[in-house]
């Protein structure tokens, strides 16, 4: 027990520890039982489940752990749940995919778990270094995962692209962080906040703000830092794409919220303006570019860009409602996005790559249930009630309206209307195109569970979102500082 450390410091990071242990054991299992390829899958699921259980012990806890590097609060908890859930679903949907691609699952799951670990630190870190290390853990795991299919050129290329641009943006991010450090002489967000508040807002703050913002912008794929996303999403193994588009994005948002809400509340005006532009660009470009895509994964990539735009609206608002909105949106986005990717993953058969829109055609005639599921996911992404997506959008726009960002809200809603155009195109392929593509679709138990979970989430939370709203509100509350409301209430 190193000096200045108590058991509490380790107690509070118990979930992370469990997760690490799980990851290592998965790795060991894979090493020991070389010939058995079916053990790591349950092991991974078990790890995630146990982690979740352990995590749930910390509901309502709000404290600092390990010398104020980690905040163990509702906010972190909420995000950790998001990560674990999405990891769980991702693993569920990977099993069959990996078989089809004929790659060993062990390392894959290990990397997934490590990425999750990094995310969890990103969610709860309140210190630049911790955040950075968490970020890198996640990023490196993803670099490997994206390039995981070595025989596939697309995968390799995606890997290189992701790696290069990721490293580049990390450099930018780091430079910004170094400036922040220079401004305050500390890596603790709270102290940075005090320091920035204490001094006249100089150019350096703005500079640091832009650089850090650009770094995060890359991770959440916000225009103009988004350009890696379509290529990487298209090239990466589909489950990985799913996990990047949900987990990595969520983690980046968590970090972003932490840094800007707790670290730079003093210059909120500046970064609100910054994100205002980012949000508008992201929504518009994402949606417009998606309209003419013919590859489902690419289309979903652009759509997920657009969705980051919507979430950014919540951050621009910066009010408690805004943060809550972002959380809620992320949570619902998890279900619909993962669901959509689950369907795409299903379409990967030995004879079909399955990521072109036309591969979806006639899906209805082959399996109505999947067609209905995909319909729900598309509508949810488009924000049509009674699906979860609508409730998310509702919160986002309400936050914008409340804070008086009418123009932003209008752009947002118009965009969400436009987005329906390409979501509906998918539906058209599934429901109206008659000819059926490729061989039979085998819906394994794991995949069925994945689709089931996501479908249930998208529908149930659309009809009765109350519990999530409560949780999200509680979680957002624990984030210490908010932008005051324009109107008094």
């Amino acid at each position, binding site marked *: 027990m190193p000096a200045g450390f108590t058991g509490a410091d380790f107690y509070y990071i118990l979930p992370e520890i469990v997760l690490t242990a799980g990851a290592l054991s998965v790795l060991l299992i894979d090493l020991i039982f070389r010939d058995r390829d079916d053990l790591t899958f349950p092991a991974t699921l078990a790890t995630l489940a146990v982690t979740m259980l352990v995590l749930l012990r910390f509901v309502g806890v709000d404290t600092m752990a390990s010398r104020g590097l980690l905040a163990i609060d509702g906010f972190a908890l909420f995000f950790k749940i998001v990560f674990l859930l999405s990891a769980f679903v991702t693993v569920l949907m990977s099993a069959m995919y990996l078989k089809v691609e004929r790659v060993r699952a062990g390392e894959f799951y290990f990397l997934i778990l490590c990425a999750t670990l990094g995310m969890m630190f990103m969610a709860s870190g309140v210190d630049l270094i911790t955040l950075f290390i968490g970020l890198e853990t996640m990023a490196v795991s993803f670099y490997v995962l994206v390039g995981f299919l070595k025989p596939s050129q697309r995968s390799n290329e995606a890997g290189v692209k992701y790696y290069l641009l990721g490293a580049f943006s990390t450099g930018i991010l780091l430079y910004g962080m170094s400036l922040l450090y220079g401004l305050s002489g500390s890596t603790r967000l709270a102290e940075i906040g005090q320091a920035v508040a204490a001094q006249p807002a100089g150019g350096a703050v703005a500079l640091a703000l832009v650089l850090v913002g650009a770094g995060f912008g890359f991770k959440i794929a916000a225009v103009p830092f988004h350009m890696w996303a379509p290529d990487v999403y298209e090239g990466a193994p589909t489950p990985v794409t799913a996990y990047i588009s949900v987990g990595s994005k969520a983690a980046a948002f968590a970090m972003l919220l932490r840094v800007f809400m707790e670290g730079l509340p003093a210059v909120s005006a500046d970064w609100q303006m910054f994100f205002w532009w980012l949000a508008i660009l992201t929504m518009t470009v994402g949606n417009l570019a998606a309209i003419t895509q013919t590859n489902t994964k690419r289309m979903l990539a652009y759509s997920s860009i657009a969705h980051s735009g919507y979430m950014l609206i919540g951050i621009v608002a910066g009010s408690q409602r805004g943060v809550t909105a972002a959380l809620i949106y992320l949570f619902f986005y998890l279900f619909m996005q993962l669901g959509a990717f689950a369907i795409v993953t299903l379409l990967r058969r030995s004879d079909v790559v399955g990521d072109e829109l036309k591969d979806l055609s006639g899906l209805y005639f082959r399996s109505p249930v999947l067609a209905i599921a995909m319909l729900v996911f598309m509508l949810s992404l488009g924000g049509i009630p009674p699906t979860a997506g609508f409730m998310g959008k509702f919160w986002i726009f309400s936050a914008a309206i409340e804070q008086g960002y009418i123009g932003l809200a209008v752009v947002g809603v118009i965009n969400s209307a*436009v987005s329906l155009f390409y979501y509906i195109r998918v539906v058209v392929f599934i429901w109206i195109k008659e000819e059926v593509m490729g061989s039979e679709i085998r819906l394994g138990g794991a995949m069925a569970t994945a689709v089931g979970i996501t479908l249930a989430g998208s529908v149930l939370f659309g009809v009765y979102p109350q519990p999530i709203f409560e949780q999200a509100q509680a979680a957002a509350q624990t984030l210490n500082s908010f932008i005051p409301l324009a109107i008094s209430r």
Partner: protein
Amino acid sequence: MSYAEFPLLSLILFTPLVGAGILFFVNKQSHNLIKWVANVFAGLGFLVSLPLWFRYDQQNPDWQFVERMPWIPSIGAEYFLGVDGFSVLLILLTTMMGVIAVLSSWTAITTRVKEYYIFLLMLQTGMLGAFVALDFLLFFLFWEVMLVPMYFLIGIWGSDNRLYSAIKFFLFTLVGSVVMLLGILAVYFEHWEVTGVQTFDITRFHELNMPFELQWWVFLAFFLGFAIKVPMFPFHTWLPDAHTDAPTAGSVILAAVLLKMGTYGFIRFSLPILPEATVASVWWVAALSIVGIIYGALVAMAQRDWKRLVAYSSVSHMGMVMLGLFALTPVGITGSIVQQLNHGITTGALFLIVGIVYERRHTREISAYGGLSKVMPVFAAVFLIMTMSSIGLPTLNGFIGEVLILQGIFVVNKLWAAVAATGIVLGAAYMLRLYQQTMFGDVTNPKNEGLSDLSLREFATFAPLLVLAVWIGLYPTPFLNRLTTSVDHVMVRIDSTYVPRPLLAAVQEPQAKAQIDTAGPVRGGAR
């Protein structure tokens, strides 16, 4: 339990949905079973809605059959249902049209029968929900739910250009409604700020007095949403396409009920929640409506496609409805509501009529027909009656609506009334031309020789519409009486700010104003 606390509205609301659910488990091959189930549930939906007619107390100004339970407390949204006379009528119209639509598709739909009926029933629930919801969020939910089934109805079972029309319909309506959502939120926060209560309760919004600026913006937002649905003049362009390419039942529902959503929205939300803004924008809305009336009629006159003609005619008629609405006089609003029913009945019937011949001949070209009254006399008679009701012949329903609307607008502005009235002449022109070209003359096209007259089922779809057309035409009192309280409710919100300006020598003007408050019933105030 007494009928007071019996959840009648929920029953009405979910009966079709249950039907859809059951259909989902029926084998998609057994078409007859599917049809029967669908028809039974549509009929059931109509039956359970009948008590609304008999049990509705038209003296009681409050909302009736109210059901209320928390839904999303954290944003103050509730599961809050209730009706007044206006919505009662629209609900009955909806359920009845549901039956007719389902029945009319018996032979028309041969492919993917199961999905078809499922979507039709889901659509039914969506529409009913919008009419019974007293919670703005709930309303919006149902309002958008409607889009999807309709999209599929057009997109899967439509004719040539269906995908284009379907997406056009979808996007148009969607753009409108999302902007409307912003308006809703603005009202929501305003109400929260003023009263400290966060709720979507429409009845509370009705008592909210917002600053004019805000009202103005919200009005625009609402206007976009509702005007596209109505559709009013510049936003009407989705309608002809949607109508033309939709299957018969789709067109019927679209014309009879879906378009009413827009006007319903105006009456239920725009007018009572935003009185000042409404009054301020009367002039341009009225102008748009009048343009719509004339324009729709003119374009209709130039159509070669039977269904398109009817579609444009309904643009014209809905313009009339909007005009009566924005007369902001009790007579005008009453008339506009009655005219909504009439439009539902008449235009619905006209689309059924097109459907009948389309099913037999598979063309909508007017020129392809002629002399039909020789081969299908009964059909011709029905068509004649509906034509007459469409051009507002007295003793038929259309007349009541038009006369009330015009009288209502007349006291506001003579000129508007005069111009709008020309719509009647034009209406006669294009409808009669249509009738002449299709029904009269010799049977030019040999294909038309062997057409069979209405079958019993087909006649059954028309019978209720005919009865209603005559009933409303001869004795509309029961309908009008049910409307008094709803109309008063709106007027009470409007009156305080609204002063009619007669163009002609206005003697005793002030006293007129004085009398409005006394004579202008305040019964609705109790809400």
